[in-house]
């Protein structure tokens, strides 16, 4: 960060990177989304609910949620071995656990829901981008959900709390704090912390993550509405149903 508070990529401390989201990009999947967040390019695809394989792992009272976060070999500067690394296994787990509270898994007993998060191009904050995209893919797949889930990261660079770290800041900075929450319920589903924060810094970071997350949620919403309600047709009928109710 320079003396004017401008970051390596020209942003101020409270600015997000450019964010673009599209829903329904994978035709074969039941639900999918593509997110371009800074230099991140991530596709999330959801299959299911479908029959559970292997059969002995199925759960009698709810669906089994499977999640795979994977980075393509060409997603980073130096070729990445496509075999799942320690880091990818961890991120698969945290994405799964960040999404699970939003889902009504008990509505789909004895089935499996599979989420694939494929990183085509990687930048900082890919787990929160993955969560944001997966939540949309799940909604697109028509799985009952309490709320969408939004991810957003905050970090500490040169002793200052900044929103939405990029790759350089992630590596050079002194800490980062990925955060995911359900915006309407105001419940946290993922909170990780790397590096050292004082308690005041932590509180400030959490506040900032919420503010940033709400900005992301706005774009996430728009992306979903764009796929289903562009052209005005159904939304007006929603409106008219409500108007008739009032009449």
């Amino acid at each position, binding site marked *: 960060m320079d003396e004017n508070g401008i970051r390596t990529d020209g942003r101020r401390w409270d600015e997000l990177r450019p964010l673009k989201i599209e829903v329904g990009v994978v035709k074969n999947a*039941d*639900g999918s989304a593509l997110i371009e967040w800074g230099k991140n390019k991530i596709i999330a695809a959801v299959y*299911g*609910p*479908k*029959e559970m394989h292997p059969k002995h792992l199925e759960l*009698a*009272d709810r669906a089994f949620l499977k999640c795979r976060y994977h980075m393509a070999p060409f997603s980073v500067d130096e070729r990445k071995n496509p075999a799942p690394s320690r880091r990818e296994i961890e991120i698969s787990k945290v994405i799964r656990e960040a999404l699970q509270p*939003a889902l*009504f898994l008990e*509505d*789909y*007993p*004895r*089935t*499996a829901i599979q989420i694939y998060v494929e990183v085509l191009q990687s930048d900082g904050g890919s787990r929160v981008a993955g969560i944001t995209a997966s939540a949309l893919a799940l*909604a*697109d*797949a*028509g*799985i*009952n*959900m*309490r*709320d*969408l889930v939004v991810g957003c990261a905050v970090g500490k660079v040169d002793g200052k709390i900044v929103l939405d770290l990029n790759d350089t800041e992630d590596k050079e900075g002194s800490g980062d704090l990925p955060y995911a929450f*359900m*915006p*309407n*319920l105001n419940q946290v589903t993922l909170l990780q912390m790397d590096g050292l924060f004082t308690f005041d810094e932590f509180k400030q970071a959490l506040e900032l993550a919420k503010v940033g997350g709400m900005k992301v949620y706005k774009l996430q*919403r728009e992306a*979903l*509405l764009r796929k*289903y309600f562009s*052209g005005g*047709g*159904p939304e*007006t*009928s*929603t409106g*008219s*149903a*409500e108007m*008739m*109710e009032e009449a």
Partner: protein
Amino acid sequence: MIPGDVIVTGDYRPGMYVQRRGSDMVALRVGLAEIVRNDVKVIPLSGAYIPRAEDMVVGKVVNVTGYGWEADINSCFVGYLPGQFVFGRDFSPSTHDLTTRFTVGDLMLAKIEAFDRTRDPQLSIRGPGLGKIPQGEIVKMTPMKIPRLIGRKGYMINMIAEFSACEIKVGQNGVVVVDGPAEGVRKAVQAIELIEQEAHTADLTTKVQQLLGAPVGPAPAAGPENSGEQ
């Protein structure tokens, strides 16, 4: 509506895909909200087929077991048709040969007799029009769009059947079988594909009427409670 959206606030009853949170009615699916008096529901626009009792489905036999048939009903659950439902109460696997009625690969129009969370859906072929489907062209649709294909009181599907001179069997699981003269089948399939693509548009009936060469006119009088239908 998208998951998490508050549809209305106040004294309402939550219906399908709606949850009450305090006094807020919250949507659980991507879809259209519908409020009729006190009942709030969401008509979903996406999603896989989840069986419900009394649904009509088109199933394909995938396995013949000792006591019945297993059918793929385009869902995460396998439909099961017990031998008793076909041969009657005195069915016994030693005296009756199950393959004389259905073998692997056969299509059937069946009703979901019972379905609960603990066991796979049970099928039945007792009822008018139910049973084996000997031939026809299979068209798959998004299950959530089947109500558009059927239309108000079957208006749409009857119109397509009439103007294509075809017999059309519609499964609520999103599988449709069309049978009739080649030209008619082509027309009917086109109409079904049109509905698949434009299910959410307002003047769907007119578009289908134009495609079929049917007289263009309004569908039968719409009640306000059906405003989400077309």
